[in-house]
């Protein structure tokens, strides 16, 4: 019962409303209020990660304790896995707000921007912490509706078209999730994830069990943009203002998509081999198709958006491999390795994809274009943007000593050790194509000097933007330390343990 846990939702909610009201009377203050909110959240989430460690802590809202082992009321659960995702949300959020201080100066109605931003953070923190499936839906909608508004923030033709696609598909996804929640309540007569687990394992697995799984996979798959459901992602992520693209790609698709899929399929449903194979296939498909769609793009942010699909494919695939091995009940240590690789790649992706979108925003800020063919020779004019984006590009392509190398290595090693040779080969090939695609990005944007084409007036971006980019570039290097044996046990292993140990999650909540 840690009193800090509800603050992770309460602070950004309060921040959103206060920013809106106070920003009306005192112009110029919203940005600092949002910055203060995010600083506080970063501090709290890291404090909980360090102090909590491997132990999970459960917060019962309103103090409704379980009665005879049956949980009533709303639960917020902070364990090894959610602690990591909370840290990602706060850090990328903090750096995006820092970046926005300069970047959003070109837009009007600043207080709405920061207010919606805080609301989105509140929604994501709520999804990650919630231990109740209907509460997940409510927080998911808070995050989704504020992100619809943020994608449309420029209110030009492209932004409106992107947000329309995003909203229609997002709404369909939400109703599928709601329908699945209805079915779950019908068959389990409870909404608490741990209690649903108990109800499902005591029978009650009729034909609708598979329907529930498919509906939830489709719904959250649409939110996470796995390949057959990816149509909205390249439009929405490329049309949003750059700090929001960094948030959407770096955090939102993980917190409301991948995280919930992993949480539900490990801790709520019993892992079945058929579902595990389906998830692995979807992951491998989005990994391969995403990168092929990316390589032909000339718009920087669209290229990065397609790479997000591909990199999320790695996460889904390696978690899926872990699920297959667990459902067969053999080689549990390899399953643990695959799941660790997936979670590690998820953290790394937040760092390097956030950085790449911030770089793309910096290029757009200075040159006024997003088309790679109209750039060239920016390495001289923008040395910091160039070097940080080189770090991020090497990291996403999986070159040592950057973090992407270690997580991809773990995933490929786990796939080989689990005898999934085809998937291991596919992961390596996709990594090489990613490298090719980012060499194109580097060459056309920063090198490729054509005489007479360089415009002298292009200057490096302001200090707050540089600050966030450099911080993330350093993070790209430092995160590779998580692969070291001593640190891995204390940070990544608690997350893997809570997913691997099937009964631990439900027993800590029902108190049995």
């Amino acid at each position: 019962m840690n009193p800090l846990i509800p603050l992770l939702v309460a602070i950004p909610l309060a921040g959103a409303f206060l920013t809106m009201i106070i920003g009306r009377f005192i112009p110029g203050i919203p940005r600092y209020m949002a910055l203060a909110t995010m600083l506080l959240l970063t501090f709290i989430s890291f404090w909980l990660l360090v102090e909590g460690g491997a132990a999970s802590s459960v917060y019962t809202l309103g103090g409704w304790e379980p009665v005879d082992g049956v949980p009533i009321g709303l639960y917020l659960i902070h364990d090894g896995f959610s602690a990591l995702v909370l840290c990602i949300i706060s850090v990328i959020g903090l750096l995006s707000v820092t970046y926005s201080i300069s970047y959003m100066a070109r837009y009007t109605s600043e207080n709405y921007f920061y207010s919606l931003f805080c609301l989105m953070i509140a929604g994501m923190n709520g999804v990650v912490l919630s231990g109740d499936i209907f509460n997940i839906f409510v927080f998911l909608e808070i995050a989704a509706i504020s992100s619809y508004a943020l994608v449309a923030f420029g209110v030009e033709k492209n932004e409106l078209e992107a947000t329309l696609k995003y909203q229609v598909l997002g709404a369909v996804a939400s109703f599928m999730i709601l329908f699945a929640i209805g079915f779950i309540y019908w068959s389990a007569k409870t909404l608490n994830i741990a209690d649903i687990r108990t109800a499902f394992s005591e029978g009650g697995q009729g034909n609708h069990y598979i329907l529930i799984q498919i509906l939830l996979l489709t719904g959250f798959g649409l939110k996470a943009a796995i390949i057959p459901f990816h149509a909205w992602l390249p439009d929405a992520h490329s049309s949003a203002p750059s700090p929001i693209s960094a948030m959407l790609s770096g955090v939102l698709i993980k917190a409301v998509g991948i995280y919930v899929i992993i949480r539900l399929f490990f801790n709520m449903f019993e892992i079945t081999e058929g579902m595990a194979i389906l998830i692995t296939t979807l992951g491998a498909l989005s990994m391969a198709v995403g990168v092929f769609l990316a390589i032909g793009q000339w718009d920087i942010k669209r290229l990065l958006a397609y790479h997000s699909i591909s990199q999320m494919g790695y996460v889904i695939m390696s978690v899926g491999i872990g699920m297959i091995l667990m459902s067969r009940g053999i080689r549990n240590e390899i399953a643990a390795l695959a799941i660790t690789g997936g979670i590690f790649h998820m953290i790394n992706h937040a760092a390097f994809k956030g950085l790449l979108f911030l770089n793309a925003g910096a290029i757009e800020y200075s040159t006024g274009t997003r088309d790679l063919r109209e750039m060239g020779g920016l390495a001289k004019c923008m040395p910091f943007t160039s070097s940080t984006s080189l770090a991020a590009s090497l990291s996403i392509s999986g070159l040592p000593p950057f973090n992407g190398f270690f997580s991809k290595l773990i995933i490929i090693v786990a796939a080989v050790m689990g005898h999934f040779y085809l998937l291991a080969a596919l992961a390596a090939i996709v990594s090489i194509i990613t490298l090719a695609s980012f060499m194109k990005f580097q060459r056309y944007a920063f090198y490729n000097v054509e005489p007479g084409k360089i415009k002298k007036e292009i200057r490096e971006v302001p200090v707050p933007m540089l600050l966030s980019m450099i911080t993330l570039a350093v993070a790209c290097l430092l995160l590779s330390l998580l692969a070291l044996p001593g640190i891995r046990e204390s940070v990544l292993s608690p997350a893997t343990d809570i997913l691997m140990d099937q009964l631990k999650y439900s027993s800590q909540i029902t108190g049995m």
Partner: protein
Amino acid sequence: MTVYWLCFILFLTGLYGVITRRNLIKIAISLSVMEFSCFLFLALMGYREGGVAPIVDMADPVKPYVDPLPQAMVLTAIVIGLATTAMLMAVIIRIYRKYGTFDIREIKNLRG
């Protein structure tokens, strides 16, 4: 049982509308149809034949009560649905001002 099937058919009707309609307003209406089929399903789950409102009467506490939890869920979901619909309508109005049409085939700036 029939009533649940009708509910599911309503959901599929909404989905069909979202996929096949070309007018933005009709897409928004189809989304609302989907939404309300979900609400109907949730409300039906809590219903019991001959049930009464779940207010415990001390004189006669054992009665067939309807399940109050789905009703609370439906109320929450209706509020969320209102926000979604309002947001979608705001975007559609903005699109009409920029493109001058409700036809989704005309709105195709983003591709590739």
